[in-house]
């Protein structure tokens, strides 16, 4: 049965290639949009999780970009039982040279260790360290201007979190002066085997203007992540539907051209279910080959995206095993669902047309 399916696909090369391409385009689209959105979410959540079990932001603020928290809370937070230490972060953005938008991270000195220096030293006042991606694009590699203020480049760093490599890091005091705020968020590290929710409650008591969440809770409920995920799912669904329609139309053309084949099978007493099954096997093979091809192509594309300096490391796709499995199921479903209607039509071929002298 499988060898017959391969022969049938080979005998209809042009249509097979067209269906294969249609599947590949859809699957690669789903791979890229899902992996890139996953990558963005993973990178940002990794950054949040890297140095904190609890995140504190301004209450009733939809995005951390607009959050302003009093940095002096750190001292009170550190006094709470089972708190190991706390750090603060300002997240901002600014044009740098010809780059329209560059992420700017103002951090407390205890967060500097998160940025692995490739050369130079950590920033003092009026100094910055720059990520390796942005450093490659700077014309002036000694000094940069952020919000009309000049900063000396004291070093270049590398981060495991892709988009940080496209950013600039400076002390939280300097960042506070630029963005006119105290801190975007405070991250709290707790001691091992501590009930985080108890500490969250205690932190909330310190100030009515703040909102505290465990990092996992924050990541799970962060609106921006939900928007990215929803957008990604909608675009993936559109790609799925486009692929599905492509397969239905191309399979219908192919099946129509093979009507005499199905007519003779019916005349020979081959059951309709067996005819449908044989077409499903052809579709499954196409779906499987297309998935493997799309997986390879997507990885190549993602590699180039990841290493494209013009993207400053902001776009960094990640194909997890879970995502690959999800897209594998999607690909096979797309191929099989797309061939159901053409297969049923093929199985309905009336063999009487053969006997009536029509070469159907």
């Amino acid at each position, binding site marked *: 049965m499988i060898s*017959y399916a391969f*022969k*049938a696909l*080979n*005998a209809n090369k042009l249509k097979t290639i067209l269906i294969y391409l249609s599947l590949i385009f859809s699957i690669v689209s789903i791979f890229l949009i899902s992996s890139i959105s996953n990558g963005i979410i993973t990178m940002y959540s990794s950054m949040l999780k890297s140095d904190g079990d609890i995140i504190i932001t301004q209450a009733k603020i939809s995005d951390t970009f607009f959050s302003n928290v009093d940095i002096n809370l750190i001292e009170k937070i550190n006094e709470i039982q089972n708190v190991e230490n706390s750090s603060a972060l300002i997240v901002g953005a600014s044009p740098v040279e010809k780059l329209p938008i560059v992420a700017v991270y103002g951090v407390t000195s205890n967060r500097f260790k998160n940025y692995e220096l490739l050369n130079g030293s950590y920033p003092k006042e009026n100094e910055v360290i720059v990520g390796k991606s942005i450093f490659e694009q700077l014309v002036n590699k000694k000094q940069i201007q952020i919000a009309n203020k000049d900063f000396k480049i004291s070093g270049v760093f590398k981060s495991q979190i892709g988009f940080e490599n496209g950013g600039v890091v400076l002390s939280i005091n300097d960042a506070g002066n630029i963005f006119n705020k105290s801190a975007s968020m405070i991250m709290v590290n707790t001691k091992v085997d501590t009930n985080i929710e108890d500490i969250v409650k205690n932190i909330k008591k310190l100030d009515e203007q703040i909102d505290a969440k465990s990092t996992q809770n924050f990541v799970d409920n962060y609106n921006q992540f939900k928007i990215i995920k929803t957008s990604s799912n909608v675009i993936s669904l559109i790609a799925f539907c486009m692929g599905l329609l492509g397969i239905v139309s191309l399979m219908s053309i192919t099946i129509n051209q093979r009507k*005499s*084949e199905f*007519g*003779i*099978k*019916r*005349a*020979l*007493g*081959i*059951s*309709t279910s067996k005819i449908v099954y044989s077409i499903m096997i052809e579709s499954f093979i196409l779906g499987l080959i297309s998935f493997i091809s799309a997986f390879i192509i997507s990885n190549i594309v993602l590699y180039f995206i990841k290493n494209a300096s013009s993207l400053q490391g902001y776009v960094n796709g990640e194909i997890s095993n879970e995502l690959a499995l999800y897209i594998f199921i999607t690909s096979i479903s797309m191929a099989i669902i797309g061939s159901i209607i053409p297969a049923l039509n093929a199985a309905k071929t009336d*063999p*009487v047309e*053969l*006997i*009536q*002298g029509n*070469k159907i």
Partner: protein
Amino acid sequence: MINVKNLTHYYGKDKALDNINLQIQKGEFISLIGESGSGKSTLLSVLSTLLKPTNGEIVYENINYKDIKNIDRFRRENIGFIFQFHYLINYLTVKENISLANEKASKKQIEELLDLLKIKELINKYPNEISGGQRQRVSIARALINNPKIIFADEPTGNLDSVNSLNVFELLKTFSNKGTTIVVATHDRNLAAIADIIYEVKDGKLI
């Protein structure tokens, strides 16, 4: 073998078969002759279970058509069919084309059948690598591979020259002599004469 009573068939409002009564015995070689549109192909389609009759009764060795639950299986196990055009599948070899009709047929069985039809050497060829006459012989082999009780052939020589046409009819006669019932529709009265019995179909009636 086959007992047909008061068989009538309509295509919409057009009557294609009109009160046909017919008895076919085991091993008989029957020719149905008639002009184009006379109803012989429709009769063949109905008798071979490809077409459900509008009215009347067909009984195959005590099994009434109406009582057949799995028509595909019945056709697969009892009936062989030869068309005017060979309808071989081009991307399958001769052996694979024949296996379509009987997946359980061994290579040896297929070789023996092809040997009988004098085309054993074609077993691994593709349809586009053999002649028209050879293709029709392969389609005969495909019709015979499941040892059918009855073979229906609709203008099986319609696309063949006179020599190949005669060969096909002689082959069918050979199988008829071995006990297979053969029903052939043809417009060629000379070839029809090879059969044991000739029926003429005219305006949907058997004369």
